[in-house]
């Protein structure tokens, strides 16, 4: 399956992926309108220090500790894509405890959130990939 991969060599630390991610989550038509005066809470996040930066988002692991550890069964895997049923999540944070990438975070709707490869929003190429100005985030099939 196609996954999002990042290459820190090309990451500029511009954080646009975070904004594209947040925008995709709003299902809005115009980013200016959707994100004006909003503190974004994206599912992809940049780590940066001393000129090094890279984006981190859900790896959609083959052995997903979040799915296995979820106490409510809110996580599920479909076609390799791990998604969260926000209605079933009780925000116990067992997944945050489990994820070795730190890719799961509290959402604004009381559940937890993580990258779902935009399958619920724009579908197709994820927003972060489309919005990366330097090819540092790619969406491709790898072994």
């Amino acid at each position, binding site marked *: 399956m196609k996954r999002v991969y990042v290459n820190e060599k*090309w990451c*500029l630390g511009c*954080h646009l992926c975070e*904004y594209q991610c947040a*925008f995709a989550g709003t299902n809005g038509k115009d980013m*200016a309108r959707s*994100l004006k005066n909003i503190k974004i809470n994206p599912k992809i996040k940049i780590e940066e220090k001393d000129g090094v930066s890279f984006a981190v988002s859900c790896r959609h692991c083959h052995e997903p500790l979040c799915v296995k550890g979820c106490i409510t069964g809110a996580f599920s895997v479909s076609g390799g894509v791990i998604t969260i049923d926000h209605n079933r999540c009780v925000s116990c944070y067992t997944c945050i405890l489990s994820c070795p990438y730190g890719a799961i975070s509290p959402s604004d709707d009381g559940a937890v959130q993580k990258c779902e490869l935009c399958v619920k929003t724009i579908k197709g190429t994820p927003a972060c990939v489309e919005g990366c100005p*330097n090819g540092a985030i790619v969406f491709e099939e790898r072994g």
Partner: protein
Amino acid sequence: MAVNFLYPDYEVARNYDRCISCRACERQCANKVHEYIEDLNKMVCDDAKCVDCHRCVSLCPTRALKIIESGNTYKKNLNWTGKTINELYRQASSGGVLLSSMGNPEDYPVYFDKILINASQVTNPSIDPLREPMETKVFLGTKPEDIERDEKGRIINNLPPQISLSMPVMFSAMSYGSISYNAHESLARAAEKLGILYNTGEGGLHEDFYRYGKNTIVQVASGRFGVHPEYLNSGVAIEIKMGQGAKPGIGGHLPGAKISVDVSRTRMIPEGSDAISPAPHHDIYSIEDLRQLVFSLKEATDYKKPVIVKIAAVHNVAAIASGIARSGADIIAIDGFRGGTGAAPTRMRDHVGIPIELALAGVDKRLRDEGIRGNVSLVVGGSIRSSADIVKAVALGADCVYIATAALLALGCHLCRSCQGGKCNWGIATQVPELVKRLNPEIGYKRLVNLMTAWQHEIKEMMGGMGINSIESLRGNRLMLRGVGLNEKELEILGIKHAGE
């Protein structure tokens, strides 16, 4: 602090209805124009630092930014223009030579824009390039005068070394140092993909790029930076740089700040030292001296590689070219006065040299008149902006063109002409690692390939229109050109008729 007489050249116009304070502009501006004010959750700008490179404009995800030329003007004066006054103030404050970069932007005639191309109607029908083969391949190098045969009548291969190009375009010299590693990689990979050549410039060849040798011209300039036998043998041709269109008559100066570890290794000079290319080659004061260097280089490369001599288009360019054509050189490259540079004194860039169109026409005619046109191929550069310019250049007598500014534009350059500052926001004319990484060669080389592919299509369209199916048949075919708004003298030099004639 003394009063700064200068008013900012540009204003950053931010549409606060659209700005979401994502700070991408702030993070992407090496000139530190933008700043986020946390208390206000608001972006602010220092217009004075803006160089109009459009990096922020391009990356702003909500299109909240635009850069406008500063509306403020000095009291109107068609003699003492605002630009002239500003330059004067700058020098009065610094005492220094004004520096500029990229090509001459001033209002001199662009002859390419006063020349129009022919097309077939009724007779000599035009050709549809989508249905019929159309050849854009060219070979550069000395062509033998005669066909030689051995005693049994078999043809002796007396063909001197040739460069083969899929289309009559090469990326002209830009040194590693003046442009970044990633820019070089983009050019090299694109050249490989396209079947054309790029040029190392005078900074030597980074060890990583030896693998693109089949698509490389290695340059030898007055500073001789990075020149060694392996280097000379790594490419398919060697170029002796005598001059550059942007700054004829002077050398180059790459400041020590740009001599990073890698650049110093490649140039074979100490890290941090200034790289100064002398104005002349100190061993060349005549065509005979040039001939010595040409043959030294041929000797060093076993006579397997054509030698290019590159000169700036200056007043007596035709006579100089004539000499070069007799020096043993295989190719003459002529760089017109619009040619680009990473840094040049403003006055040199803007006031020295002649237009490439006139130089090319003059040189081609002179060599033909002297019967030595076959001694050399002609490559012209200095602001080839489109496929139409290429077609016109070829029809005026060029075998091939050099492009550089156009290639950099494809890589993201916005012609802000601030290369000399070393803080290129597009990762091209800089050695700052955080800026260099902004140019991803994976993206860059594809854009170059796209541009050249598009131009090749257009060249074929225009050739087809003229009923010509091989670019070789267009070379020097000045009947395919007509001038508009040119005087008799200009038409005479260009060797073309006026439209309507």
